[in-house]
């Protein structure tokens, strides 16, 4: 029953951008100052967003254990394809007016168009083979192999958005980072082992006594705040550093369990602290950003000190799991 509700919600959320666009086009007659641009943004953006949601299904299932989530994946994928086709149609009609030579020129000369086309063409066979009949015909293994094209579609889609803009914007970077995380998640952890290790690290941290647990939450919060400042180079570096640290810890955990050696997941912060300190001068214009950098340096610096001690104790022979309640 719960899955029916979820499917209904997915339908409603996915249909909303199209309903809003149709309403603006035919009821209020207000598609903004540049109507074609509005049509292109408001079909392209949901295509990418829903594609990301599709990619998030498997990690979410593994993390939450709610396996029936799989039953909305095809729905999401088809909605993403629907918006991608609508998006392409605006280009075909309003930018190129069915000119095949014009489209070929764009694809050959312009990586921004090429990436969009790659993304659409990668989704096409997935949409066509999304039925149960096709899964049977291809066999689960071959079907899954084919459907790995979704990663290509997502990466090309995120690049398409970045290359369309004159500068890197918060929005385009955010999508690109999310795609990298979701695709990276699969590439690094081809099996459930990596994911299990990630979950293991998190569970281990949540089982620590109150004080260290609170500290870890604070650390995560300060580092995650990079999303709020994602237009800044500093925030982008911190986000990547976080992912890197997580991967290092997952690898250590998979091999050795919840041991003090996990502290190495913070070691790359040594050069980063120096670099961030050097960037403080330039951060003065925006107080919120300035204090965030200060907080990053203070809290990651303290964590690094604790981690160095931990790693030292591990190397000195303390092999038992780190304190747990």
């Amino acid at each position, binding site marked *: 029953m719960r899955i029916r509700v979820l499917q209904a919600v997915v339908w409603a959320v996915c249909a909303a951008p199209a309903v*809003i666009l149709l309403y*603006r086009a035919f*009821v209020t007659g207000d598609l903004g100052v540049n109507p074609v641009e509005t049509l292109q943004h408001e079909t392209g953006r949901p295509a990418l967003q829903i594609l990301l949601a599709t990619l998030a299904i498997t990690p979410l299932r593994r993390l939450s254990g709610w396996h029936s989530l799989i039953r909305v994946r095809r729905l999401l994928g088809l909605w993403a394809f629907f918006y991608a086709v609508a998006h392409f149609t605006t280009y075909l009609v309003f930018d190129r007016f069915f000119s095949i030579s014009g489209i070929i020129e764009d694809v050959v000369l312009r990586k921004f168009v090429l990436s969009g086309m790659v993304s659409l063409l990668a989704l096409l066979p997935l949409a066509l083979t999304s039925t149960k009949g096709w899964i049977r015909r291809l066999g689960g293994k071959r079907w899954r192999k084919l459907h790995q094209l979704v990663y290509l579609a997502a990466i090309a889609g995120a690049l398409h958005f970045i290359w369309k*803009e004159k500068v890197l914007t918060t929005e385009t970077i955010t999508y690109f980072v999310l795609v990298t995380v979701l695709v990276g998640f699969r590439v690094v952890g081809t099996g459930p082992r990596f994911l299990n290790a990630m979950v293991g690290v998190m569970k281990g941290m949540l089982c620590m006594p109150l004080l260290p647990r609170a500290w870890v939450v604070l650390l995560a919060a300060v580092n995650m705040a990079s999303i709020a400042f994602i237009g800044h180079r500093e925030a982008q570096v911190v986000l990547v550093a976080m992912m890197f640290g997580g991967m290092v810890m997952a690898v250590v955990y998979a091999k050795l369990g919840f041991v003090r050696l996990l502290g190495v997941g913070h070691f790359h912060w040594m050069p980063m602290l120096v670099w961030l300190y050097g960037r403080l001068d330039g951060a003065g*214009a925006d107080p919120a950003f300035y204090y965030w950098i200060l907080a990053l340096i203070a809290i990651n610096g303290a964590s690094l000190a604790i981690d160095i001690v931990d790693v030292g104790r591990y190397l000195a022979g303390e092999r038992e799991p780190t304190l747990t309640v």
Partner: protein
Amino acid sequence: MLIKKSSDIKESEVTPESVYLNRRQILQATAVGAAGAIAGGLLPGSAFAGPAAAQEGRRLPDVVASPLSTDEEPHTWKQITTYNNFYEFGTSKEDPARNAHTLTTEPWTVAVDGLVGKPAEYSVDDLIKPSKLEERIYRFRCVEAWSAVIPWVGVPLRDVIERLEPEAGAKYVAFQTLYRPEEMRGQRSPVLEWPYVEGLRMDEAMHPLTLLVVGLYGRVLPNQNGAPIRLIVPWKYGFKSIKSIVRMSFVENQPPTSWNIANSREYGFYSNVNPQVDHPRWSQATERVLGAFFKKETPMFNGYADQVADLYEGMDLRRYK
């Protein structure tokens, strides 16, 4: 029967543009509301509307029409004030309309320095006053391949420069935008190097088409369009027409320009509108006039070739982008 001559009608009796536009909008909104109700629409129209048009400022006195205007139909006040590239207030087209109200434009001074006879801090009035304000309806072509027709009010930059008495060694004019991140929230992100800087060769600056703009539709320039004083060079891509100017420097060497610093492969110093030289990532052969669905061909120098082509005689425009 007493028939009033047009000059007898007091300004206060004339329906301001905003009011008659509003009337139309109200009528439209009513029709739309009715249609929406019939259609059983559950969605409030306002939830998806863009930002509101800029408030109309003071009407500028004694503006004369210029013979250099195009006879194309200008875009509306709302279109021109709600669709802007002004990264100092954010990178989306609607950000300036939403965020530019925080900018204080009074008091305002423009520093004039470098190789010039009368260096000083000038108020906007002192800088432009001796010249007569002109309305010039110009085509405006953005490097992003959209375009508009805009009724600017301003004075020829040439007149201003002549009064400042540049020295013979001054070969370029460099311009700088205000840097005030407290009021210009876009400057808190490093999307470009702040402050924004631009420049023109002296003969470009002295060209009769080049304008120092202080108004739009006969009224003071709205903040989102570059108040209180901006440049307009109609044959170049829009980003050359620097906004909210606080400094004009007369220099010997070609000055740095913001988009060229950000990406020298994509944006050159000259940045003349040229349909034959594409942006590395998109075509410049065509443009979409704001509001239109289909694209039209972009003319050389944005249609001002007759007046400006000789400035670039003998220059390879593929090289000097």
